[in-house]
């Protein structure tokens, strides 16, 4: 496999963009990514884009940005669509098929659906059947928030985790997003405001659930040969890419969490030659905080702390921007928003800008000593299955 780098990124403002066309949301992200990479757009040889609802919008956006004619592939994998598109672009270049590719994610949530199995009735029946055997029926019987609420409740019972621990994740998220002008929510919240917000599924209040957001994000990838040939300044290298899948969200014998996230983390860290402790010393990351509970269990599933100690990570300030292991410096899905197809590439844009100390993240810059390595992670539920996608990046080749 050839070495591949990220060389540019662009993100549209996230928010409720119902009145805009897909190409109006996607074009600025693509053009910003090309400008950020400082390359001639004619170098781009292929496009992979993630979206759940935008049929054919990749062609429209490539047409509006002068890129039509290159291979364009749509990826539909729920919340992991964007990171899957990025993984395919990476594989395309690593295999030698292309030297420069664009990975884009875009969503207008009004049009998006994760229920791709053909009709509500059938989905309900099958979902109920498949959820049997799993203690955490994400997406079945109570919707996504209920699935994570059930997980949170079990975590509270098993480990003594408190509602305040989950709420503190939102406080941290809002604080970081207040420095992110592209986030949907840029106002800070106190822990009391989070806890006293509208109850969705106990213990999850409204602000502990990510919003339905529209937006787009694009990143440019390039082979090592092209990086040298075109004198690219500060490329960020992709050191690991891994993916896992499962049905239902948990193994009944597994403590509250997402067992395949743990497996995927091991795979990607192994490929990159790093261990969880390395991120404490010199790294940071963006994880899939679709709900407050999910971020807390991700700390544990990735091996950053023992099972049951996720609450300490947030309460002790470990995951703050100036903490020992900054997580979601962008504000994450909880505050930036979660346009299904765009989230994966938005996360990659964030770690790329952070590692390159780009002006885009100047107000929320992760400290120098943590910029050597970074990870990104998405957890998607396409229909009745789940898909986890993780990447590890490094400033050094």
């Amino acid at each position, binding site marked *: 496999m050839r070495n591949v780098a990220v060389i540019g990124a662009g993100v549209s403002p996230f928010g409720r963009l119902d009145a805009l066309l897909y190409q109006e949301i996607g074009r600025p992200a693509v053009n910003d990514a090309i400008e950020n990479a400082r390359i001639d757009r004619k170098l781009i040889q292929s496009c992979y884009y993630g979206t759940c609802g935008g049929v054919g919008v990749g062609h429209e956006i490539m047409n509006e940005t002068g890129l039509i004619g290159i291979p364009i592939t749509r990826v539909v994998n729920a919340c992991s669509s964007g990171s899957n598109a990025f993984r395919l672009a990476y594989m395309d270049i690593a295999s030698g098929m292309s030297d420069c590719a664009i990975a884009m994610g875009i969503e207008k949530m009004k049009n998006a659906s994760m229920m791709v199995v053909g009709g509500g009735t059938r989905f309900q029946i099958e979902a*109920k*059947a498949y*959820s*049997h*055997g*799993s*203690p*955490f*029926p994400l997406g*079945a*019987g*109570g*919707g996504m*928030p*209920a699935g994570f*609420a*059930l*997980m949170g*409740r*079990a975590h509270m*019972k098993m480990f003594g985790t408190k509602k305040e621990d989950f709420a503190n994740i939102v406080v941290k998220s809002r604080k970081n997003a207040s420095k992110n002008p592209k986030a949907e929510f840029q106002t800070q919240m106190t822990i009391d405001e989070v806890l006293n917000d509208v*109850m*969705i*599924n*106990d*213990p*999850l209040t409204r602000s502990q659930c990510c919003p339905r957001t529209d937006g787009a994000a694009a990143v440019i990838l390039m082979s090592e040969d092209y990086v040298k040939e075109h004198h690219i300044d500060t490329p960020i290298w992709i050191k690991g890419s891994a993916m896992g899948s499962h049905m239902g969200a948990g193994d*009944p014998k597994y403590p*509250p969490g997402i067992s395949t996230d743990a497996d995927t983390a091991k795979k990607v860290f192994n490929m990159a030659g790093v261990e969880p402790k390395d991120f404490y010393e010199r790294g940071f990351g963006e994880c899939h905080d679709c709900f407050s509970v999910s971020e807390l269990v991700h700390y544990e599933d990735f091996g950053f702390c023992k099972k049951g100690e996720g609450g300490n990570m947030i309460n002790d300030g470990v995951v703050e921007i100036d903490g020992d292991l900054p997580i979601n410096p962008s504000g994450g899905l909880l505050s930036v928003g979660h346009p299904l197809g765009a989230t994966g590439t938005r996360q990659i844009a964030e770690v790329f800008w952070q590692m390159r100390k780009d002006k885009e993240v100047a107000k929320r810059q992760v400290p120098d000593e943590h910029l050597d390595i970074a990870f990104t992670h998405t957890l998607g539920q396409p229909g009745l299955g789940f898909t986890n996608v993780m990447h590890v990046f490094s400033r050094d080749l």
Partner: protein
Amino acid sequence: MESLITRQKVPMLIGNKINAVKCDKCGHIRFPPRTYCNKCQGTDFSSILIGPTGVILTYTTTYKKKPKDKQRIFGFVQLFTEDGKDSFNLSGTFDTENINDVKIGKKIELLPNEKYTIFKLLED
């Protein structure tokens, strides 16, 4: 070539027990019953009745759109066979509107009706 019809036309419940099948080869429990095991692809099964008693694994409240809406408590339970050797996890609604009545580990009894899976809370 295998038949495309894999759903077994058997009652979902016998009384208030779940009518499942257990793979003779690997022991995996399948519900609703199918003609093949999705773990080992085996096709030989034995019938197994699970429930009606079990314990609460986890629970949450359902979202109330309007204040007057009924507050349902939704969750997952682990149901056991009579001999206690096998178990199966099932989602459903508890027969209470008060979340404080529900506790992880509390015993329940499956009381299904035509539309819903209802779990009756039992005294410890």
